[in-house]
């Protein structure tokens, strides 16, 4: 049986892992390579590194960090944040990333998803979708939730699947940062409407939130950041808890 995946996410700015709400008041929480190795030892199934640097220097530092992660980590990892071209994605692949995640750039230029999948295979392409519920409709947003698009979550997800995406990472902006649990209803509907794997993001606050997600088959994987970074949830304990609730988990 395929195991459900636990995926810590690290936001990286100028070579440091940071955490903050809506990129305000960013706080450094550690060295991204060391943190990644520690999470892998604790049982993380894969990792996501997001570049939140705003400068060219920051981007170059990120690329060097990706090589270092690839050398030191023995589990898969995805990189994202500001990838907008084949060249950018290719540089990350050559630096050792297993997958790239594209978000705003996919909305702006859907052909990028198609071209990446065609050149490097679907398994390399994760499309990250941020959305929030507005008047009963899940509206896709970009630029960390600052820009609303005309796209609707379920249609957009199907479209990127058709373009060749190998996986979808969905963040509910209504749940992100609340620690009140994942957007299970939307995730469940989304999962049933696509035939590629789905990763849930936004809202994890306690172990029961992961259980609720997996027991109801809402996603193949669960992403979280602050609960892991601040030691509120230990990955090894979380996985034992899920396993004891009869969820397929790799210990």
């Amino acid at each position, binding site marked *: 049986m*395929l*195991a459900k995946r636990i995926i810590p996410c690290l936001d990286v700015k100028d070579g440091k892992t940071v955490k903050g709400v809506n990129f305000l008041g960013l706080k450094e929480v550690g060295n991204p390579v060391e943190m990644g190795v520690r999470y*892998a030892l604790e049982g993380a199934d894969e990792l996501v590194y997001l570049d939140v640097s705003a400068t060219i220097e920051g981007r170059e530092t990120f690329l060097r960090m990706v090589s270092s992660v690839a050398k030191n980590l023995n*589990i898969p990892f995805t990189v994202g944040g500001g990838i907008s071209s084949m060249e950018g994605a290719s540089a990350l692949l050559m630096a050792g990333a*297993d997958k790239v995640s594209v978000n705003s750039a996919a909305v702006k230029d859907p052909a990028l998803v198609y071209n990446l999948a065609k050149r490097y*295979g*679907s*398994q390399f392409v994760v499309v990250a979708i941020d959305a929030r519920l507005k008047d009963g409709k899940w509206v896709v947003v970009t630029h960390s939730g600052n820009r609303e698009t005309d796209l609707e979550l379920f249609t957009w997800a199907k479209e990127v699947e058709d373009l060749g995406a190998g996986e979808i990472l969905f963040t509910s902006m209504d749940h992100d940062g609340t620690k009140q649990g994942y957007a299970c209803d939307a995730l469940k509907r989304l999962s049933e409407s696509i*035939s590629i794997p789905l990763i849930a993001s936004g809202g994890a606050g306690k172990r029961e939130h992961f259980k609720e997600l997996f027991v109801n088959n809402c996603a193949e*994987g669960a992403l979280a950041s602050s609960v892991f970074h601040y030691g509120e949830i230990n990955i090894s304990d979380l996985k034992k808890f899920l396993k004891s609730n009869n969820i397929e988990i790799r210990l």
Partner: protein
Amino acid sequence: MTAIIDYNTGNLFSLIASLERVGVDYKLTSDSEEILSSDSVILPGVGEASNAMSELRKRGLDKVIPLIKAPVLGICIGMQLMCSSSEEGDAECLNIFPNKVIKLRGKGIKIPHMGWNSVANTRSPLFTGIEERAYFYFVHSFAPVCNEFTAATTEYGDIFSSALSKNNFYGTQFHPEKSGETGEILLRNFIKIKD
């Protein structure tokens, strides 16, 4: 010296990094003499089967690989290329293993099969010291069917061969280089095989 066959197929960074962590002396090569004189050979692979086959043919490696006497490990597409044929791009393959490679099928499964799945019915020195039903990392949409050369099975929809072995040829559908410590044990086991 372990030869990693270099035939322009995707990113070898992870495999190389993993061999370095395990402490394996390796060389990237597409030279037939170098390949035939190595202590062991790894055929990696990411990408699409029919393209990967034409990259092998372009370098004459389709004639060389079946002649190798040292242990050979095919990983993912690398293993699929050692099978008889693949539904992916309707590719004729090397036919070292007489298994057909078919698209993953079964009720309600998502494709690609991505993530950690358990590996059962292991019967190969590759799995020495690895517990039955241990988890390995998979990323693929096609896999070899089961037959007498199946060295491990995995269930995803239907059951497929997650490892194959025949004489000095071995293959894994999963990625040992991405499978944590368990994967590193498997790579060490492979390097220790003396045929």
